[in-house]
């Protein structure tokens, strides 16, 4: 299946793109991040990230479906 992945802040710089379409066999968000970490060499451990699926915060075990939009959210620093 295909997911659309959004990148922000340090992950965006590291991936050198703000979004990409990813072919994945991962069943959940955790598996997808592991795949992308291997591809891009992200240094950030999943324990530091939050996940959003289709614009809502979700758990790492969130089951992914074809066409989902997934974002891995680094620690925020607004204000």
């Amino acid at each position, binding site marked *: 299946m295909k997911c659309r992945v959004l990148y922000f802040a340090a992950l965006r710089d590291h991936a050198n793109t703000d979004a990409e379409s990813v072919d994945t066999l991962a069943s959940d968000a955790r598996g997808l991040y592991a795949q992308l970490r291997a591809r891009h060499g992200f240094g950030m451990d999943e324990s530091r990230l939050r996940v959003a699926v289709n614009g809502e915060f979700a758990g790492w075990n969130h089951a992914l479906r074809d066409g989902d939009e997934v974002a891995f959210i680094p620690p925020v*620093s607004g204000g």
Partner: protein
Amino acid sequence: MAMTSFSLSETVIDAAALTRELAQAGAGACVTFEGWVRDHNDGRAVLRLGYQAYASLAQSEGERILAEARDKFAILDVRCVHRVGLLEIGEPAVWVGVSAAHRGAAFDACRYIIDEVKSRVPIWKNEHYADGESGWLHP
């Protein structure tokens, strides 16, 4: 109640206009907070800041925080605006305003909102340093 009390802005925050939106006859207090761009952080000289947001989720999470504030505190109205894009030293990066019948609830709600916005809303700060480096803050 306003349809959207939280917003992201690519342009300068108009604090006076926002404050006027909070006014109503039953309000005896108005507390506002501004977060400004500072010229240093963690011992390094900062020239400017770039703010990036996950806009759709920042909007929904910001609105959720303001709804929580309405539930928790006896307030009349509330607004919060956060800048995105490149900001110079001294510019307001975030603005929170609360009106209430009495000052206690207005102070408490304002503090609650800025604390929650800083810890939960998907917005990131990129510091541009005097030595030419830059870096995202991921506390």
